[in-house]
């Protein structure tokens, strides 16, 4: 039971807790609409015949997530944490990029990782093997992490003040774009085995990201991937996006990524007092 928000368990598990299934059944086409309220008619229903009335709501559907995200952002800022939300398709090499990054940075910076996957703790296990603390969130049927889950994960993980918190989101280029987690930056990772038109096919994600990492560039000689075209597409969707080309496997380009992390951390800490 959550002391902050009073929530009970959902279908999400934050490592080792129990998941329960919601029995959502869909009965398409068997609604019983006994009156016709269709297409604006509700605004014109005869007074006195029913108790129906209109209620103005005017609320953003994601309003609640955004409130949790704002609370997370406040906490991250208070703690001097740089939080990076890593998003990509499944198989782009997010976890390998993270383990290599940790290897390069662990003598210089404190780090922690939140791993999001539908099932298994494989990714958190891979991170923990590097000696950095990690926590797995299994989203069950969910296709993204939300700000509420992150709030709880941070409570459990307790990252050190002034550390880097990486959040490896569920491999999905659609939904994580809409869910603010309170991070400083979304980092979209695209491997060159995926095709250069990904930024156009999934524009919401590349629009929301501040940095695009083109991973697995060691494979370029064997592929028809059009690097220039890919960069142009990404800039078309998001003129502000920064782009780093690297190979987590060979280490080529990793220095730029490390510099970007350090620069982002410097900005995050600029008004940190403690």
């Amino acid at each position: 039971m959550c002391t902050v928000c009073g929530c009970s368990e959902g279908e999400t598990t934050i490592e080792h807790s129990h998941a329960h299934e919601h029995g959502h059944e869909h009965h398409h086409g068997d609604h019983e609409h006994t009156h016709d309220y269709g297409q604006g008619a509700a605004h014109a229903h005869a007074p006195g015949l029913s108790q129906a009335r209109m209620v103005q709501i005017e609320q953003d559907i994601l309003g609640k997530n955004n409130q949790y995200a704002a609370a997370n952002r406040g906490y991250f800022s208070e703690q001097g944490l740089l939080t990076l939300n890593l998003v990509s398709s499944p198989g782009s090499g997010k976890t390998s990029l993270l383990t290599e990054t940790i290897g390069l940075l662990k003598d210089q910076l404190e780090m922690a990782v939140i791993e999001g996957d539908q099932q298994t703790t494989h990714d958190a296990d891979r991170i923990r093997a590097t000696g950095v603390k990690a926590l797995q969130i299994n989203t069950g049927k969910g296709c993204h992490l939300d700000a509420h889950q992150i709030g709880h994960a941070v409570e459990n993980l307790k990252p050190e003040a002034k550390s880097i918190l990486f959040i490896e989101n569920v491999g999905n280029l659609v939904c994580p774009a809409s869910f603010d987690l309170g991070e400083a930056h979304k980092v979209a990772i695209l491997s060159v085995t995926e095709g250069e038109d990904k930024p156009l096919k999934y524009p919401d994600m590349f629009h929301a990201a501040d940095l695009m990492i083109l991973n697995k560039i060691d494979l370029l000689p064997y592929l028809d991937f059009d690097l220039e075209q890919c960069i142009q597409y990404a800039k078309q969707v998001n003129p502000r996006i920064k782009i780093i080309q690297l190979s987590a496997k060979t280490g080529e380009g990793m220095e730029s990524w490390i510099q970007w992390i350090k620069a982002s951390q410097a900005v995050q800490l600029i008004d940190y007092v403690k």
Partner: protein
Amino acid sequence: MHEMSLCESILEIIEHQSQQQQYQKVKTVWLEIGSLSSVEPEAMLFCFDAVMQSPLVKGAKLEIIHIQGEARCLQCNKNVAIEQRYDACPVCGNFPLQISAGEEMRIKELEVE
């Protein structure tokens, strides 16, 4: 299927509002969905029925008010209608466009009893 999570958020807002606004039954829900909002109206309709199962909302009808994407071209300074984030300015053919409408995902109003 993040439309499922969105419907769950809608349900939460409706349940919360039912105490403040004193209603026992929701008959119709009007949503404003922008064409650039990454919500698929068909999927939304499908998930809505699946999620709206409690007595407060069962059988409620979902009406989606579509909001056209709009942007201002930073080159020719015209306001233009767009379908996708990556559309070029239909007047001068340039990028970038600054989006001014079409990202909405809002519950506008309810018909209740």
